């Protein structure tokens, strides 16, 4: 079995991997390898043929494939090597050399090893299946994750069903409500367990409202009928404990049930590596450099935490690429002063990425991303460092479907922590009532 050496291996050639590669190359790392399991670069963007991508990154509205192409062009221009149709099957850390050992295979090279100085994890995420939702009933064909249905319509030109109920109002589900309608199917309704939507507001307007597709909040599927193919589903309203309310059941005759009930970061390799994982995000814990607790292994994009907009994925991935470059080129070798800020999220804030910040390695401004666990209207987003209020941001609306962020300014952070006299610091992010 062959073994090669690389400065940087990027696992995944989707939006995160591509942006990370371009960024690392721009910082001066030349010996890069992107490993992509599909037969083309671009990841899930290839099947997202709707527009709405790139408003932040390129200041224009692109389709998924167009957005991916911008980055693929940059990768080609930088002549960054990539392997397609290649699966990484193992990832480990060589304690002696500090190298990361990537085990991969494809049809032409067979099984091979890559020894890398740094690795960027950019494997993306997968959709939560029916089983994870514990929906009772039969198990016929005609139950698809929204992404699978999207693959069929957009990549294969095939219709996965004609009379459709959608469970879950995640963005892909909303997008697919519109897509299935465009392609000639009838979408009866979108049921959402929560009292709020899991997707972006703009998608509710453009994908449901514009097509008169009802959104049933606080509703779920309680039974699936059909031994061979879906023949119908029963939808019931749920109470505040998410339990179906007896008597509220309505039967919908349909041949298809699409599920858009959340995404799960795809971290099999991260688990194999033994990096410490965050049970809230399903991704690894990372520091300000987006580095996991395994030195030289960075993570970005949906494998780290599920994003709402690809533009933010690209931004995060560019930071990971730069940080990996700094690691490889020894640029981050400056004295660590030992100061550590642990980020604590509470009172409605579910998690943060990063979860720990070493001020010595902070860039001048550091973006901290997070999501809230409920829908909040007219609240403050408050940030405290070592007990001192750092920010109080008035928010008209915050929802679980949309990612939030704050920007920490290094000079201000340094000023506060220098006053405290200790090395361990605490930054708290929380939702608060307005006075």
């Amino acid at each position, binding site marked *: 079995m062959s073994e090669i050496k690389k400065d940087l291996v990027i696992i995944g050639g989707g939006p995160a991997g591509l942006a990370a590669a371009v960024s690392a190359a721009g910082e001066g790392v030349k010996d890069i390898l992107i490993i992509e399991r599909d037969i083309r670069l671009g990841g899930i963007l290839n099947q997202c043929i709707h527009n709405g991508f790139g408003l932040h990154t390129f200041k224009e509205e692109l389709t998924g494939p167009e957005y991916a192409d911008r980055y693929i062009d940059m990768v080609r221009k930088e002549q960054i090597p990539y392997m397609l149709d290649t699966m990484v099957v193992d990832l480990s850390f060589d304690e002696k050399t500090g190298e990361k050992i990537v085990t991969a295979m494809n049809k032409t090279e067979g099984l091979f090893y890559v020894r890398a100085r740094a690795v960027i994890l950019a494997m993306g995420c997968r959709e939560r299946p029916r*089983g994870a939702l514990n929906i009772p*009933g039969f198990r016929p064909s005609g139950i698809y994750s929204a992404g699978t249905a999207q693959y069929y319509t957009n990549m294969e030109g095939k219709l996965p069903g004609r009379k459709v109920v959608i469970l879950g109002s995640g963005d892909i589900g909303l997008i697919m409500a519109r897509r299935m309608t465009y392609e000639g199917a009838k979408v009866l309704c979108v049921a959402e367990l929560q009292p709020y939507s899991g997707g972006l507001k703009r998608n509710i307007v453009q994908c449901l409202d514009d097509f008169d597709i009802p959104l049933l909040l606080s509703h779920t599927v309680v039974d699936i009928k059909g031994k061979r193919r879906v023949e119908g589903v029963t939808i019931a309203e749920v109470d505040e404990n998410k339990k179906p309310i007896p008597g509220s059941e309505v039967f919908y005759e349909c041949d298809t049930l699409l599920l858009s009930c959340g995404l799960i970061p795809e971290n099999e390799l991260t688990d194999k590596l033994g990096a410490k994982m965050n049970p809230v995000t399903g991704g690894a814990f990372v520091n300000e450099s987006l580095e996991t607790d395994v030195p030289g292994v960075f993570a970005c994009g949906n494998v780290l935490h599920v994003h709402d907009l690809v533009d933010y994925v690209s931004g995060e991935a560019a930071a990971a690429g730069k940080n990996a470059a700094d690691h490889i080129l020894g640029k981050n070798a400056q004295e660590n002063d030992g100061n550590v800020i642990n980020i604590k999220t509470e009172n409605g804030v579910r998690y943060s990425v990063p979860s720990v910040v070493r001020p010595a390695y902070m860039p001048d401004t550091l973006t901290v991303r997070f999501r809230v666990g409920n829908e909040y209207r007219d609240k403050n987003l408050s940030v405290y460092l070592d007990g001192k209020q750092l920010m109080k941001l008035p928010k008209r609306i915050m929802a679980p479907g949309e990612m939030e962020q704050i920007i920490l300014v290094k000079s201000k952070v340094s000023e506060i922590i220098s006053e405290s006299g200790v090395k361990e610091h605490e930054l708290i992010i929380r939702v608060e009532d307005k006075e």
Partner: protein
Amino acid sequence: MKDVTIIGAGVVGCAIARELSRYDLDVAVFEKEADVCEGTSKANSGIVHSGYDAKPGTLKARFNVEGNRLIHELSKELDFPFKENGSLILALEEEGRKGLEELLERGNKNGVPGLRIVEKEELKEMEPNVSENAVCALYAPTGGIVCPFNMTYAFAENAADNGVSFVFEGVTGIEKLKDETGEVFYRITAGKETVDTRTVVNAAGVYADVFHNMVCEKKIHITPVKGQYCLMDKTAGGYVKHTLFQLPTKSGKGILVTPTVHGNLMYGPTADEAGDCEDTSTTAEGLDTVLSKASLSVEDLPRKTITSFAGLRAREDGRDFIIGEADDAPGFFDAAGIESPGLTAAPAIGVHLAKLIAAKLNAPEKKDFDPVRKGIPSIALASDEERAELIKKDPLYAKVVCRCELVTEGEIRDAIERTLGATTVDGVKRRTRAGMGRCQTGFCLARTIPILAELLGKSTDEIEKSGHGSYYIDGEIKDTL
């Protein structure tokens, strides 16, 4: 005239077919579904019971203990996944000790090797996550876990390789007739086909009473009893090592918590009368019961469900297996009422019935019988060296189709092209595990369908989940606009 016609290609029918293929006999198996292993055999606990549970002297006891011994050997000869992980029957209160002692005695009478009672301290060592309420347990070291699908496929493939024919057509009628010499024979109707056969084996699972009662005056009655299960993600697979049973109490038989042979964690089953013989639907109450009762056996029960399912047990009113030639129908052999421990007992039932039938038909053993069957190689379980070797032979073993379970196109092609190969998506899934993982075909479905279509010479629109109208693709986009 066929020598033997077997009704039902579940684990029992296939085990009988495999044993009959040792003899010089013309054997056919009829199955109403599109594949073997489509009924009770595909939806059960996957447990190889040690044999302490059945009443001494019953057929259940006899075939369980013998079947357990056979599976240990057959898993090597026929290359299907089996692991002797040992079973623990937990007493969750002190009163349970007496019950365990009774089971121990019963097991000893049944000839179960190695049974003993373990006390709390040792139990904790064996199973660190066991419930704090567990006082002691009966340890059955020969208890095991098996892949029920591949055990069934192994029997079927080996039978077919040794000359047994499989017909995927449901039997709708059986007539008992006499030939010119006065010898009884049977005329089987299956769809448009009519087959005359000297003997019949009734291995029809939940429908076994229907076929028995077509030809026998002494009627039997089978009730389908539904068992619901929850399967957990592999990240929870190591939570317990042994199969944990609960000592049956007045309120029921209890729910088991077990690792599967593939490394998942599984809870179940419930036991409620099903609406009918096709009612494999799960219910909210059933799944709740599974989770709440499973949580009695271990501390902090993992709740990482990736799928749930239900299977039907064929419970005969007499509560024992019915095995052998019917009194008033010479040449009609029953393997009926095969509820738990039927999976374990199947190989022993196969040996027993094959001997009876061969003796009745004066059939000699074949000289060219080949007892060995090779399974599909697994990239997921292979070492790097083995992987490299497989890929060298066929580069498609490097092409991953199912990410969750790491199943390659090479394995999927093998599953379709081999003897009695898969013709449906479920068939590929059960043979290779493509789609068995945490995304449950979310990614690999669209990659598996084209491979099936190519190798079966069909269009992708024709590929089904499990046959009989379980289509996936419904035409082209915009075709109605």
